[in-house]
Structure formats: C-alpha cells, structure tokens
C-alpha cells in the first residue's frame, strides 16, 4: 500500500492551495490513501469523488477542511471541489448522523408500500426526511431508486441494503443499529468500501497523457 503515495504527492506540492498555507486535515494514513487514489488516474482531478468518499469515511461528512485538502491534492480551488461535491447526493456538505437511513419511494417501492414505510420511519425516528435525530444517531432521507427493486420497499443504511421491510422490520432494524448489533454489517456513515485496492498501476501507461497537470505513467513497479 505504501509506494505509489509519495510519487503522486510530490508532484502536487506546488499547487496554489498549498501555497496559500492551508492546514492539513487528513492524518498521515489518510493522506497516504489519498495520494494512492490520485496516483490511479491519468489526471489528478479524476480522484475528486473518491477523495470525497475517503474524507467522509473519516469524518462522516465532507467538512470544509477536508474540501480544502482535497482541493490541494487535485490542484483546483476549494470552491470548485464544493461546487462539484454538491452535485452528488452521496456527498454531504453538512453533518449527518452516524447512520444515514435512505428510504426509497420511487416507482417499484411506491407500488409495494415505500411511501407508508417512509411515513412510518418519520414517526419512528421523530424526524422529517432530511433531518437528524437529537443524539446524532440517525439521519433520514427519502431517496430515488437504489436498484434493489426485488427487495421493495427497500432501505439503505450507510449504503447497505435492507428489504423488503414492513414497519415492524424497520423498527427492529433501527433498534439493532442503535444497540450496535449490526456494526459488522453497517459501518458508520461515509465508509463506502472496506476493501482497499492492494496494488498500484502495474501495467504502466504506455502512451498515456503526460501533459501538464497529469500524473505520468508509473512504470511497472509492483507494491511489495
């Protein structure tokens, strides 16, 4: 996991954001993961969304300091990172609960009780869609189709699927989450994939872009 990091990070150093002297938000391990991500793409900015996911895996949301550091890593302004991030539903630029509970009400779920389930979820959690409960445990969302229509009405918690759910099933799910019984299945919000890439670019990017701003081909060194 180590070696691709330094290479990619080094060529980022001169960017304007770091020249402005922004404080580093990521710890050393996160910074290394971030630089690994950047090294996978022919152009640095491609790593923007993966870096936002990385920041959310640490903080639970995309905070301003993380945005500044991501801007520094990909070589654009923090405003551009924010402007891009707000386009995407999964990137939260405001704090959310430890568990983001997403209830689908799109067509397949609608036909199988998704709206009733959402109404129940509001009552059960005591929040409206978009709201977070008082102790910061649960944020409720009404979402568009999650591609799990064979499990309608379906719910996601931090990206993990549950369904079909009757109102009683929903309450036991919430209760299990509250009691930490599902911690192995449902990591805290922001943790997308728990499987890291364990190799850098191995093939070498023959003929790859080497224009200004791009990361040159990395040759064939494997990680060991």
């Amino acid at each position, binding site marked *: 996991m180590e070696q691709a990091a330094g290479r990619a990070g080094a060529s980022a150093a001169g960017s304007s954001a770091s020249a402005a002297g922004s404080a580093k938000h990521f710890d050393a391990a996160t910074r290394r993961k971030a630089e690994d991500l950047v090294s996978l793409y022919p152009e640095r900015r491609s790593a*923007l*969304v993966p870096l936002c996911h990385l920041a959310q895996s640490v903080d639970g949301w995309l905070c301003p300091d993380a945005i500044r550091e991501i801007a520094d890593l990909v070589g654009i302004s923090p405003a551009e990172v924010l402007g891009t991030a707000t386009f995407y539903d999964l990137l939260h630029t405001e704090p959310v609960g430890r568990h983001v509970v997403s209830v689908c009400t799109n067509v397949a779920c609608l036909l199988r009780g998704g709206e009733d389930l959402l109404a129940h979820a509001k009552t059960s959690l005591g929040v409206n869609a978009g709201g977070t409960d008082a102790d910061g445990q649960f944020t409720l969302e009404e979402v568009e189709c999650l591609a799990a229509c064979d499990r309608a009405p379906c719910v996601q918690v931090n990206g993990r699927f549950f369904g079909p759910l009757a109102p009683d099933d929903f309450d036991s799910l919430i209760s299990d989450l509250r009691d930490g019984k599902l911690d192995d299945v449902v990591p805290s919000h922001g943790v*997308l994939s728990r499987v890291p890439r364990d190799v850098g670019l191995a093939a070498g990017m023959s003929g790859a872009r080497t224009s200004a701003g791009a990361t040159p081909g990395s040759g064939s060194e494997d990680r060991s």
Partner: protein
Amino acid sequence: MTVTSAPKIVSSRFRFDDSYTLERYLATGGYEGLRKALTMTPEQVAAEVDAASLLGRGGAGFPAGRKWSMLRKAPVRYLVVNGDESEPATFKDHHLIERDPHQLIEGALIAAYAVGAAQAFIYVRGELALGLERVQAALNAAYAFGAVGKNVLGSGFSIDVVLHPGAGAYICGEETALLESLEGKRGFPRIKPPFFPAAIGLYGEPTVVNNIETVSNLPWIITNGGAAFAALGEGASTGTRLFALSGHVRNPGVFEVEMVKTTFRDLIYAPVYGGGVRPGAEVKAFIPGGVSAPWFGPDQIDMPLSQEEVGKAGSMLGSGSVVVMSDQACAVRTAWRITKFFYRESCGQCTPCREGSGWLEKIMHRIEVGAGRMEDLDLLMDVCDNISPGVTWPPAQTTICVLGPSIPSSIASVVRMFSDELLVHVKEGGCPYA
C-alpha cells in the same frame, strides 16, 4: 407459457453462494474467454462480437461491435464500463456486480484488448457498497492471478483496471456525463456532436463506454463464438438478456431469458419468472423498459421481448426493466412519482428539462391530491410538447441529452391510457385509490 432452453450466459453462476470468488470463477470456466481472446488478434475479437450482433444492454441498444469500430487509431484509448445503473426499476447490473464481478472484469479485459485501451475504468454507482467491495476484491484477486496488470496471462498485453465509485446522480449513467464525472466534475452531459466518446472521450481521448451487462456477455461470446450467441433470439435482438421485473408481481427479480422467443406474458406469469400478479389482482399496465419508456396495457402483454417489436409499438426495451402495475395501482400517482424523479435528477443545463420537469411534477401532484383543474390535462400535454415537440416515439429532442425527452413518457401514457382516471381525480377532488 414459454420458457426456452437457452443457456444462462451472464447469470450462470448465480446459483452458487460463492459466485463472486476467484475460486468459483476459475472452477466454472472463468478467464478462459480472455485466454482465448489473447490468442486472437484484436480485430478477430471484434469480428466475433460483430457476429454475435450484441446490442448494448445499457438502454440505448446500440450494437456493441459498431461502437468499438468507431475508435480511431490513436495512441491512447480508454475503456469505461458503465455500472451507474440508476434508471428506476433497473437492478440487473446490481446483481452482475455483486454476484459475478470476475465475469465483468474478464469482459472488460476482452473489450480493452479488442479496442487497444491503455487503461480501463469500471464506474459503479456509489450506492452499491457491497458491489464496490466485491469488485475491488475481485480486481485484487485478478491482479494477483495475473489476469490484470502487466503481461496479462503471459500474453504481452498489459492493462490496468481501476474501480471508480460514483456518488449518487442518475444523469451520470448518460455516457458523456459519466465521463465528466470520471474526470472529477459535475455530471453534466456533453454537447453533441460528437455523438460518441469514440471521437472525444475521457480526457478528450478516444473512449469506448460499455454497459456492465454488455461486457459480461463477452467471455461467453469469445468462448462459444459469436454465431452461437446470434443463434439465440431472433432478428436484431440476439442472445439472452437480463430482465429486472418489479412491481405487483409475486416474485420480483432478475431473470435471464432468451430474446424474442419470450414474451412479456411469459416473463410476468411463468412460475420460474414473475409467477403472475398478486392474488386477486390483474395487470392494469406495465412499463416495458425503465421509467423513460412509454407504458403498455394488458392488450400488449403477448408481445415478444424484442427490441424491434417494442420499438415499433411505440416504446422501448431500454434498460430491461419491466414494472407491473396491477388494478390496485393509481396510474396518476405512479406517473407523478416518476415525474418527480426526473425533476430531482435533471442536471439543470437545458431549460425545457429543468423547468418542464418541475412544472409537470407540480401539475401532476395537484391533480393527484385533488387540487387539479380541467384545463390541467391540456396544460400537461402542452408542457410535454415543449420538452419534446409532438410527444412522439422515439421522442424529438430539444435538450443536450435524452433525459428531457424521457420525461413525457409516463404522463403521455396516462393521458393516452387512463384519461378517465385523470378526470376522476379532477372531478372528485382527489385520488380514488387513496
């Protein structure tokens, strides 16, 4: 009821609990297609896919082989696999991603070899956390096995494959929006022409974008030959296809069926597929290919699952998702919810789509909740006509991408098929199904 004996091409491993592991994959013929492809020239591989007449499985149904052939000779070419499956009621790629990640990786490698790509990206929608974990684990295993990376399986061909997570935006399934997203930008579809990323794609370089199911077919096609694939189905609709069946059926799910030889009735009623509608209910309408498609009624249920036939009848097989509404469903509410989806997901670049979707959502909503006016029925069609002049099929386009022209489909269907239901909502001041 017809259930043909066609082989399972992309879902053959779904019966195994460990279908996503390298061990199971190798024990069931995995990476043999790639091994064979690497003994052929890239042109021969492309010719085999041409012979299969494989139509893209993402929604537009464009011939995969022809997409490849448009790639100019260029030093850098990219392959992008589109796994941003977000068309409502579409969940076939979700199954392929979670349950057979090696198959799609092998397919991507075959495609990359055929087009001479320097690097491949697999873009998976960010909601599929388990899918992202399964594909990354499979990629790690494939690198270690030697199927990805430098000198693939000792052939001299080298390729890197990078898994890229999306972050929640329907529009990123549109291939030029997906490329923008992959470049780290907002997912705004690009202005056409050029109509295909083959000319100007990722980072401005020639790029092929293929759907997950499309590439998942490639290992079988190379192993068994394009002719064997083309022998299945009929006419331009060759092979088998995954259909995602949802709504008021007994067994919603993903089913691999032979094209053309199977009808909507087979898919909805056969015990091995949908198992029929819920007890005591009948089919009121069904959507044949994702919510962008105009609806069909019970009188069209015997139509074959054929891209041409469905197209001629004024709709599309699209993304292969069939939504069944029983007589217990409110057509107005269903169409309103679909319209609300488009309103939320319009990227906002083009006025007809951005503004029209909001107007339509508001009008549909007030009809559904009992505040509709008689003149709303004409107003609905007027707004639809401004988004897609004539409200025809295939739809006319006033926008950069096809999201806009897809918006009128459900509303025009309700006006055409269920105008009485709309009138009841207006006259009685509310939803009779509520």
